[in-house]
């Protein structure tokens, strides 16, 4: 499966990082680019539980393609979610089932963000995405 163009760009961006500071800056930049979620979508039903911060995620199948929107009041998780959406938005239901998302974050050098510790928000987001697309 070939990567969407934006995902290729992310991969290129994160491949050449020298240390945590650059990684953090880049994460925040990607977080800033995430289109804002309307207040109407920031409902309890869309909230992802299990994060230290507030995270909202919505997903819709439009013309056979998944389109997710998300936001968070914390910047790092917003960046992580942005990197997730870059990888999954526009995929078909079948493609989404096949994709190895932990490997995606591994390729970005962010695999630690998926540790099973309960305070880790990204796992909860992936879990919610699986529930939405089941």
């Amino acid at each position, binding site marked *: 499966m070939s990567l969407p163009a934006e995902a290729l760009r992310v991969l290129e961006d994160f491949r050449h990082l020298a240390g945590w500071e650059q990684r*953090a800056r880049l994460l925040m930049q990607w977080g800033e680019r995430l289109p804002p979620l309307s207040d109407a979508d920031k409902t309890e039903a869309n909230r992802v539980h299990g994060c230290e911060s507030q995270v909202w995620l919505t997903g819709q199948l439009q013309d056979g393609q998944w389109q997710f929107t998300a936001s968070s009041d914390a910047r790092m998780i917003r960046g992580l979610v942005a990197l997730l959406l870059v990888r999954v938005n526009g995929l078909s239901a079948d493609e989404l089932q096949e994709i190895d998302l932990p490997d995606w974050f591994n390729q970005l050098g962010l695999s630690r963000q998926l540790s099973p510790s309960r305070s880790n928000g990204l796992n909860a987001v992936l879990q919610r995405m699986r529930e939405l697309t089941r």
Partner: protein
Amino acid sequence: MLIPSPWRADFPAIAALQRQDQIYLDSAATTQKPQALIDALAHYYSNGAANVHRAQHLPGAHATQAFEDSRSKTGQWLNVGDSGQIVFTHGATSALNLLAYGLEARFQPGDEIVISALEHHANLLPWQQLAQRRGLRLVVLPINDSGLIDLEAARQLIGPRTRLLAVSQLSNVLGAWQPLPPLLALARSFNALTVVDGAQGVVHGRHDVQVLGCDFYVFSSHKLYGPDGVGVLYGRHEALSQLRHWQFGGEMVLDADYQQASFRQAPLGFEAGTPPIASVIGLGATLDYLAGLDQAAVSAHEAALHAHLLQGLKVRKGIRLLGEPQLALASFTVDGVHNADLAHLLTEQGIAVRAGHHCAMPLMKQLGLAGAIRVSLGLYNDSEDLERFFEALDQALELLR
């Protein structure tokens, strides 16, 4: 100012963590372990494991002896004397659940259980659920701006309907000693049972349950540099005799038929099933180690480190402490910065601190906070650990602001 820890080398994990570029500042969650404990575990497992209080054979006798030695060392640690007994549980949480279930039959609808606003979930939820099961009223003592239980309010709220008071000795979020003597005296004057959650308090200084005068005192081994999987429940004899048996099974029984059984008294009657034998023996070794330290020197070290921590937080802009921490830990938020972001960047820099609600959600809600960062100290920490933390904090805040 350099504050070295003379005990640092006694804890091999500190050096191991340092090799992984990790600074451990989360001892209020769990502590690193002294070599003495690791040796005791290895000795027990490599010299013959056996079950306790059952077998007549020699390995069983040895294990039982070591297990019961730990019980008496734990009793000595709390100066139990002839006042009561030590029951081993699987943690402070299971000790508090034992109390909430064991005392259940003694409560009538309308009776009141009193806790405080700063309780850890372990000393809140067992009582909350008991209150729901039996139609009791759960009364919550408010706290003041210093993070102390408000005594004036307590005098209004503790009364003739109060059947039990359960409070923390030292808050895991606010780091302040609670005014136990007047609170316990107040509860006693109404013949209420008193439960002290010593999970944090037991780690700092020595505490004498006879001087405290509580009915029950609870703590976890793993926060006191001991193994996990072991909790301690001290109970005064009169208070223990009010407990109904809770969990049933091996070795807590006196005589059993198919349709009925009779049970042992405390402590064995409340230790159903095989206990965490190695861990209990390990706790004994930890207490031996701790008893060999100069307690005054440990307290002075902890106080100096804590002062250093507070000073460093104070000189940085926009940092807000939760309450007025007196020792062991400090929880804080930073204006305009999400604590999850700060936690993320501290983690990136190898600083192991805790972020979030610290198992005290109602307290955080009351303080109007989604979470906070908590730095907590052990006797192995030194000022260099704190300098590393401050550097990382500055770097993180520079990035985030």
